[in-house]
C-alpha cells in the first residue's frame, strides 16, 4: 500500500499511548512546541507518564498542563524553574514529593536522546564532572581528563512540531524550530509531528531536514502560541 502518514484527527495521532508511557516533547524558547498534541494528550487523562522535555516550566509550552493534571510521575529535563514568584505546577508537585525530577545538562539531554535513536546505549562526556548533577555516576579518564558515564534515552512516543510534511513523513522546520524534535523522533517507538501544512508533492530531497522514515504520523495543526 502506498505510504501515507497523514492522519486526520488528534485521536489517530496519539493512538496507542497508554498509562506509564515515556513521552518526549520538543520545543525551545517559543519554537517547536507541539501544543496541539500536548493538549490532546492531556485530554486522554493518562497516569504515570514520564516526560522527556527541555523545560518543565516554559510559559509558551502546554507541558505544564500535563503536570498540573496529575498525569506525570517523572520529568527528565534541563530546566525546571518557573519564571514567576509563585510556584509553577511542576515546582509545587516536586516540592510535595509527588513528582520525580532528573535534571541533566542541556547538551547531555540532547546527546542522550540522539544516542537513544542511534543505537548507542551510553556515552562518556566531560560535562558535569564534579557537580551535583553527576553524583554517583561512573567516571573514567580519557586523554587525561575525567568524563562521566551518561545513558541514552528512548521513549514510547515523541511529539514534535515542524513546519511542513509530505505523505512520507519528511519534515522541514522554520528557523530554530527543530531543536530537540529531530533527535526525539529518532529515539521514540512512535513519532508524531504536528505541522503547518502537509504538501501533496513530495518534499525535494535537499529540503528534507528529518527523513520521513523516523516519523510515523503527521497531522496539520495551526500553531498555538499562548
Amino acid at each position, binding site marked *: 500500500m502506498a505510504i501515507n502518514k497523514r492522519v486526520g484527527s488528534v485521536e489517530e495521532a496519539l493512538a496507542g499511548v497508554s498509562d506509564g508511557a515515556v513521552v518526549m516533547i520538543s520545543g525551545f*524558547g517559543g519554537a517547536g512546541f507541539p501544543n496541539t498534541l500536548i493538549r490532546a494528550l492531556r485530554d486522554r487523562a493518562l497516569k504515570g507518564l514520564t516526560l522527556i522535555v527541555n523545560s518543565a516550566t516554559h510559559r509558551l509550552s502546554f507541558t505544564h498542563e500535563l503536570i498540573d493534571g496529575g498525569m506525570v510521575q517523572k520529568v527528565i529535563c534541563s530546566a*525546571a524553574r518557573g519564571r514567576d514568584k509563585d510556584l509553577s505546577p511542576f515546582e509545587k508537585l516536586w516540592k510535595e514529593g509527588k513528582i520525580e525530577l532528573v535534571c541533566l545538562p542541556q547538551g547531555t539531554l*540532547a546527546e542522550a536522546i540522539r544516542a537513544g535513536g542511534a543505537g548507542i546505549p551510553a556515552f562518556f562526556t566531560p560535562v558535569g564532572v564534579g557537580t551535583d548533577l553527576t553524583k554517583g555516576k561512573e567516571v573514567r579518564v580519557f586523554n587525561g581528563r575525567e568524563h562521566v558515564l551518561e545513558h541514552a534515552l528512548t521513549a514510547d512516543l515523541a511529539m514534535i512540531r515542524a513546519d511542513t510534511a509530505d505523505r512520507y513523513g519528511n519534515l522541514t522546520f522554520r528557523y530554530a524550530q527543530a531543536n530537540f524534535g529531530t533527535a526525539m523522533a529518532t529515539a521514540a517507538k512512535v513519532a508524531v509531528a504536528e505541522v503547518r501544512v502537509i504538501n501533496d508533492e513530495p518534499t525535494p530531497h535537499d529540503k528534507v531536514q528529518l527523513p520521513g522514515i523516523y516519523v510515523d504520523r503527521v497531522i496539520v495543526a495551526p500553531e498555538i502560541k499562548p
Partner: protein
Amino acid sequence: MKLNRSQMVWRAAQDIGDGWLVNLGIGLPVAVADHIPQGIDVFFHSENGVVGVGPLASGNAADTDLVDAGSRTITLRAGASIVDSAWSFSMIRGGHIDVTILGAFEVAANGDLANWDMKIPNKGPLVGGAMDLAAAAKSVWIVMEHNTRSGGSRIVKQCTLPLTAQRCVKRIYTDLAVMEIGPEGVIVHEIVDGLSREELQKRTGAPLTFAPGCKTINAPALAEVAG
C-alpha cells in the same frame, strides 16, 4: 572609579579575536555583542542551534521560531545557519566554540565556576546549557560584578554554591579589574583608575598577584545597560 555594566562588557569585547565563534550567556554577557571592535568579524552561537545570531528583532520582525537561548526574538547575520540541539551541543563539546562569556555567582582561585543554581528555596533547578559551555568551550570568560550587594567577594578561595564546572575559567572581567586564572591563582592585568592594589585585594576573597605589566583599565564613557 568603578566600571558600569556597559563598560564591563565593552572591556570583555575588546579581547575577542577576529573570526571567532562566540557564545554569550543570558543576562549581562549578551550585551558584549554591542561592543565588538570594528574590523573584528565574529559569529555568535546560541545553544538552541543558531550559528550567526544577529541583532534583536522587534515589532513585526519578531518571530518566536527565531529565538536565542534566552528566548529573545532575534535576527540572523549574513552567513548564518541553524542546526538542531544535538548538533549544537556537539559543536560546544567538540571544542568549536572559541570563547563563551558567562555570568557567575562565584569563581574560585583555581577556576572553579558556580553560576547555575542559587538554591532558591522551593524553586526547581535550572541548568540549561551552562555546564556544557563551561566544561567544553575552548575558553571561558566571566563578566560579573566584583562584589555582591552585601559587599562579599564573588572571587573566592573555594566555591560554596553548586559548581557548574571545575577549573574552567580563564579570565574574569569585573567592575574593578581584568584578571586571569593562572596555575597559581588569580593574576590581575588591569585595574580601574583610582583603586589601589591593596584596596582591590581587600575586596577580593582570594590572594591576588599582579602581572608585571598591570595597568589602568582605559574604558570609554558608556551609558549603563539595563538589567
